[in-house]
Each structure stands twice: as C-alpha cells, then as structure tokens.
C-alpha cells in the first residue's frame, strides 16, 4: 500500500509540474462552461438545475479523459522507465492502481474546479441538492471508468496517439450502444429486443443518465466500478505479459 502512495505522489508531482495539466484544466473548464450555457440551453430552460451541465459529460470525457490516460503506460514504455519501475520492488497491481488513482485524483480535482457553475445555479435559484450530488458522483465514476479504459489501451502501445484514438473509440462505443438514437436505429433494423436491453445495460449512457437525473441506484455504481476494475485487470495482465 505504501508503494501505491509513493507512485501516486510521483505521478501527481509529474502531472502538476508539466504545463499539460494546466492546459487540460483550462480546456476542460472552458468546454464544460460552453456546453452548459451555450449549447445546453441553460438559460432557455428557465430552470435552476444542473442537468444541462451533467448531460454533456459522457461526450466531453470521451475526448478529455483519454488525453489524461494515454500517457500512463505509453510514456513509460517510450522513455524506458517501465524497465526501471518493474525492476523495483513494486508489484504490478500496485503500479497499476497507483497510476490509476493518481489520474483519477487529477480528474476529481478538475471536477471540483467546476464548482463555480454550481454556485451560479445556486445563486440564480434553489436547485435540488440530490441530483447535484448524484450527478457529480456519476461524473467521477464515469471519469474513472474512461480513465481505466484509456490506461488499458495505453498499456498496449508505446505510441500515445494510437492509445488516445483507441480509447476514444472504445469509450464512444460504450456510450453509443445505449444512446437512444442508435438503439432506435437498431430497433428499426430489426434487432431483437433482448440484445437492445443487453446493450443498454452495458452502456455508459444508460447508467449515467440515471445518476444525472438524481436517481441513486446501487446497480449504476456497481456497473461503473466493475467496468473500471475490469479495465484495470486487463491493464495488469497486458503489462505482465509485455514483450518490450
């Protein structure tokens, strides 16, 4: 466990000494504000709630989270530090967990920095605190799942761009299989109903929508956590059998 903390500390230190982190935060905050107020039609709704804010996260994170996760292992491979890390007395699960948690903490910080939007809404009206809490929880869990997936693609390659594109596509698929326009299309093409149910169950979109609306369902939380755990497990296996 101490090793996990040491790795988290190193990763966070490296993150915050590089300008990339600040660029990321600025882009993230700008985009989330832009989507909420400009595209989400916050002012048109005439309602003081945050659903137009949370609504965009599955899409926004598709681009932003892989940008954080793509470096994780690809960079270690490229620099040759993977050889250093894995010949130190660190187990693979510790290393995977440490890196993942560091990235997740960073994304958590990014989410916390969106609080001005919440304050704005509170100032304009009196929103229901329930959906805000579940919405943020959902966003954080969603970020973790995407991060674990992009860490996984990062473990496969030493090329960050390849890692970024693969994880973006994977995350996009996970959203789309439950996205109503897509499922409706499938229905029209005559896909049997049970496959649609299944794909909805597997979809990030379906589980996130519930949390975004303020529904607290343990199954959603279990879904996100098991998706994350699965991706982390695959990451560990890939690293264990690496051939570099």
């Amino acid at each position, binding site marked *: 466990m101490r090793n996990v903390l040491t790795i988290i500390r*190193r990763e966070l230190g*490296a993150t915050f000494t590089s300008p990339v982190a600040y660029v990321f935060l600025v882009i993230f905050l700008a985009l989330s504000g832009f989507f909420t107020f400009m595209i989400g039609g916050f002012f048109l709704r005439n309602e003081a709630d945050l659903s137009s804010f949370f609504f965009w996260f599955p899409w926004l994170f598709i681009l932003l989270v892989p940008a954080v996760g793509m470096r994780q292992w690809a960079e270690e491979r490229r620099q040759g530090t993977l*050889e*250093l890390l894995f*010949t130190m*007395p660190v187990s693979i699960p510790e290393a995977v967990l440490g890196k993942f948690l560091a990235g997740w903490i960073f994304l958590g910080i990014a989410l916390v920095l969106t609080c001005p939007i919440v304050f704005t809404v509170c100032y304009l009206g009196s929103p229901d605190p329930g959906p805000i809490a579940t919405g943020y929880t959902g966003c954080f869990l969603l970020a973790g799942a995407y991060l674990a997936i992009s860490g996984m693609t990062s473990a496969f390659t030493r090329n960050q761009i390849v890692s970024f594109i693969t994880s973006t596509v994977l995350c996009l698929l996970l959203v789309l299989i439950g996205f109503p326009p897509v499922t409706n299309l499938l229905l029209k093409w005559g896909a049997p109903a049970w496959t649609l149910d299944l794909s909805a169950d597997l979809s990030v979109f379906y589980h996130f929508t519930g949390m975004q609306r303020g529904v607290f369902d343990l199954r959603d939380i279990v879904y996100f956590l098991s998706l994350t755990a699965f991706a982390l497990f695959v990451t560990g296996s890939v690293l264990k059998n690496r*051939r570099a």
Partner: protein
Amino acid sequence: MIEASNVRKNFGARTVVGGVSFSVGKGEVLGFLGPNGAGKSTTMRMITGFLPLSAGKITIGGYDIEENPVEAKQLFGYLPENAPAYQDMTVAGFLDFSASIRRLSGKKKADAIARAVKLCHLENVLQQTIDTLSKGYRHRVGFAQAILHDPPVLILDEPTDGLDPNQKHEMRELIREMSRTKAIIVSTHILEEVEAICTRVIIIDRGKLVFNGTPRELQEKAPYGHRLRLTVCASDDAPVRAMLEKLPQVRKAELLGKQEKTVSLAVYPAGSEKDFVSAVKKALDEHKWEFCELYLEHGRLDEVFRSLTTSDAVEGKEGAA
C-alpha cells in the same frame, strides 16, 4: 547470490538467449561480454524480472525472480541499458522517489540519498530536471538510483557507457570497492574494464555461453598467448630474427615494422614462458644488439574475443533462428 540455470528467451520463433547458466557469489564481479545483439541485456532483463523467462530458473538470494519477484527485487540495484529515468523529474525528486519505493524513509532516506549523491558527484545538478542533463550525468543518476539502498546485488548494464575518462576510472574504482561486500554483474564492451574489475568473465555469442572463467584464463586463450615486443637498432631484421629463432625458448620472431634505423619485432615463446624474456635479452646482449624497447605483451583480450565470437548482425539472426 545470483543463480541462473538454463535460462532461455524466445521472441516469437527466434531464440535470443539459448540455455545460459552461471552463478555469482558475494565478492565476485562477473563481466558479461558479447558482441552487439548477443543477448546480454536480454539476460539482464530476465535476471531483474523485467522480462519473463521462456525456460529455466533464476534465483536471487534464494528468491525465485518469477515466483517471489518483490522479495527478489528488494535485493538488487539495477542500472538498465541507457539509464532510463523520468525525464521531467529533478534529480533530487527522482532519487527521493527511488528511495521511497525501496522503503527507505526519514533519516535513513536522507542519508542514503546523500551518500549516493556524493559517490556519483551529483551535488551540482540536484535541482536540474533529468532531461536537461548531459548523457554522462544521466548515467550517473541511473547509477545513483541503483546503489541508493546499498543492495547486496548490483546488476549494471554498460555502467561506464558515456562517462568521461575520469568518471570511468572512478566508476571502476567504485565497483571494485563495492565488490568486497556485494555480488555484481556488469556488461561491457570495454575489454580493459574486464581486466581491471572482473573476477570472472562470461562471453555470450548469439545467446550461447562460449566462455566462463577468469580474465586470466581468457587471456591465455589468446591465439598467441603472451609475446615479447622488441625494437632493435638494426637496419635489417633478417639476422636478428634468425638469431632469435635459433633459441630453444623462441617459437617465432615476426617483423612488425621497419623504421629508418630500427626494426620492431614480436617474439613468441615456445611452450613455457619461463626464462623466455631473459633468454632473449641475453642473446641480444651477446650479439651486441642495442634495443630501445623490450616488453612483454599479455594475451590480447580483443583477439580472444574475436576468435570466440564470430557473429555479426546477419549471422546472428540466422544462427539464433
């Protein structure tokens, strides 16, 4: 401390290391030699648990590197080829991280870092980020990281690569000094280094062990063994050579070069080297030949190396497949 038995590594269908066995004990410095692509770094990566073995077994201090990797890894320090390090960290930050992951903390950690910094002369670059260091300094940072926790086993892949002559000398002194209490493996392409620091040498060629012995034994395998270098003040080499070759102790006298008033010869002993040098010298004195140079040359390691290893890149591929 280190036991490797019948270690193999295949990359796909290609065998890169094919059944290598050796052991290194405390107080020994094992030199790893071999041409480029012979499999030295690959072997070291298996010893340090970075690459899985295709077959065979490696233990460090009794711990199997594949079954108890964390325990085994606590026992060694490793300088990988090209000394990789986190480029965006400062030297101080990197050493602090390395120490923490080796479970050093508080005063122990500070002392360990201070010691390694002093031994590797890193005082002046502590706050510099690693990507701004020169190659030699990067290498020293890698070495500092390897000796930080004063491990009983050191595995160093080309430790003097990129160091200036002073640093090379110092690195060798350091390795020799530490070898009294540690088991050390070094790979190198510098053959003098082998004579200077190694107590034992193994040569790998295309993944096969072709020599395992002391540096002295290696020298004795030289095609000519020892020979005498001689520069005589004479305008012609023929009479000198004829005279020397008559001696029972001399097998052959060979002309190396002719200058204006001197000739350079190489004289090879016949059988034992006993009183070979004195016999040659006596014969020269008797015939009143003045010589301005006379010294015994030991078996040349590079000749042995060449005769033991024949692979080049192309052959290596075919031979290993």
